[in-house]
């Protein structure tokens, strides 16, 4: 039976669709790493969540460190009152299978301003390892390879890292007494367990986790999730000023790993004294790029470098946390 033109087009549409499938290795790893008792564990979708923990860990843990430092340690406090040392730290969030679902470049500039720049996990890098998605590099080649990749892509001399294991975010939000967020529209999604109404609301515990995990039913999927993470981080930063830190530290302890050379004390000082905070995502091209590793996001290294260089001269975020999808 010969196909007519419509039938041929239908075949073409399905063939195109099938080619957008995600990388199967990622799915296999998730299936293997998953405990059968948790029916909707969502190891992969978990993602972005984790950066929150890292941000808080770099923010808060060392600060308390300093408080508990005996007064004799004067040399230390003198050092931190000097001019800010520009620091670039790559904060990486991993799921239980070791995939990096969140990659955030944290920059402290000499003027004391701080930028958090998200790099989408599906960014396609044709020149790295013969072509790879960003989220493959850490699991395959380790943190040094990921640092080198981010240096190449952004032109920023990234010298430090913090790797954070997925955990603790629900407890973290609980520990600060909930984090206010705002949604453009009501949404529910069974995969993440998300169930939210429209408008401003304060989330904690499992709801916070679901808020940061959800990507189904959102207009732009993973990109909306990044926007949620950014809003959540901004809101959390506000919340942390004046919060009781002991339970916060208890929530995040043991989930963060940093390089030996990172001066967490100095970094914490810089972050807590930040004169301004900028939260951004690198410029992206086609977001449904067909790659050998499934649907990816196109990025132009020249554009990214230009964006990162120009970021300090753009106006910082205002106090208002924007509503998100």
């Amino acid at each position, binding site marked *: 039976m010969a196909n007519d033109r*419509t*039938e041929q*087009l*239908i*075949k*073409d*549409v*399905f*063939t*195109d*669709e*099938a*080619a*957008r*499938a*995600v990388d*199967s290795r*990622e*799915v*296999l790893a*998730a*299936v*293997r790493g*998953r405990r*059968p008792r948790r*029916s*909707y564990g*969502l190891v*992969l*979708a978990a993602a972005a969540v984790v950066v929150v923990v890292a941000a808080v860990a770099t923010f808060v843990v060392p600060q308390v460190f300093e408080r508990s430092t005996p007064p004799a340690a004067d040399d230390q406090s003198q050092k931190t009152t000097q001019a800010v040392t520009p620091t670039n730290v790559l904060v990486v969030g991993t799921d239980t299978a070791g995939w990096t679902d969140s990659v955030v470049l944290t920059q402290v500039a000499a003027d004391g301003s701080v930028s958090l720049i998200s790099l989408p996990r599906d960014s396609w890098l044709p020149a790295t390892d013969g072509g790879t998605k960003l989220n493959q590099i850490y699991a395959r080649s380790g943190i040094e390879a990921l640092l080198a990749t981010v240096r190449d892509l952004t032109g920023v001399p990234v010298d430090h890292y913090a790797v954070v294991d997925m955990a603790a975010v629900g407890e973290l939000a609980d520990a600060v007494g909930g984090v206010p967020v705002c949604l453009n529209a009501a*949404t*529910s*999604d*069974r*995969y993440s367990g998300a169930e939210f109404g429209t408008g401003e609301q304060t989330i904690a515990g499992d709801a916070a986790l679901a808020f940061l995990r959800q*990507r*189904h*039913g*959102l*207009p*732009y*999927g*993973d*990109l909306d999730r990044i926007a949620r993470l950014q809003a959540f981080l901004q809101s959390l930063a506000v919340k942390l000023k004046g919060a009781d830190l002991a339970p916060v530290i208890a929530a995040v302890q043991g989930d963060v790993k940093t390089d030996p050379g990172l001066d967490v004390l100095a970094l914490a000082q810089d972050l807590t004294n930040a004169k301004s905070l900028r939260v951004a995502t690198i*410029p*992206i*091209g*086609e*977001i*449904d790029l067909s790659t050998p590793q*499934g*649907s990816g996001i*196109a990025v*132009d290294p020249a*554009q990214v470098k230009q964006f990162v260089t120009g970021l300090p001269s753009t106006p910082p975020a205002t106090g208002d946390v924007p509503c998100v999808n």
Partner: protein
Amino acid sequence: MLDTFDQFAADRIDRLLRFATALTCDPHLAQDVVQEVLVRVQHKWDRIGALAARDMYVRRMIINEYLSWRRRKASRNIAATHSTLDALGTPTADPAHIYAERDALRSHIIKLPRKQRAALVLRYYEDRSDQEIAELLGCSVGTVRSHISRALSTLRASHQHPVREAL
């Protein structure tokens, strides 16, 4: 001799993902559907692994997972067209008109009733016989033929009066 689950999953996963992606028109949903199904298969591997028709069985699980997801999610199902997604990205020189016809058809396929869409994917992507499609969808051969013929007439009609909204 029984395969291990790992062997089974490694051999099948690419095809399952592609199938689920064609079925859902959403790579990320397909990922979660396949992942969810494979976790359940792993859990019950002693039983499923021994089935003669286990491939059909797993495929049927995927279809059911997709159909039930759609049912629960009846309120809103956003499936952006390629053109919508392109609008988000950096503007580039655009060979899009070549794909306009295909894109328009895709937008109509997405709007089809879910069982019709599943029947189309099984017929035109998987090249399944009416009998196999009937088994996979859990309905009669007559119903399969009716799903496919209704879907085709909807798509042919839309084809003659192309909707401009996707452009």
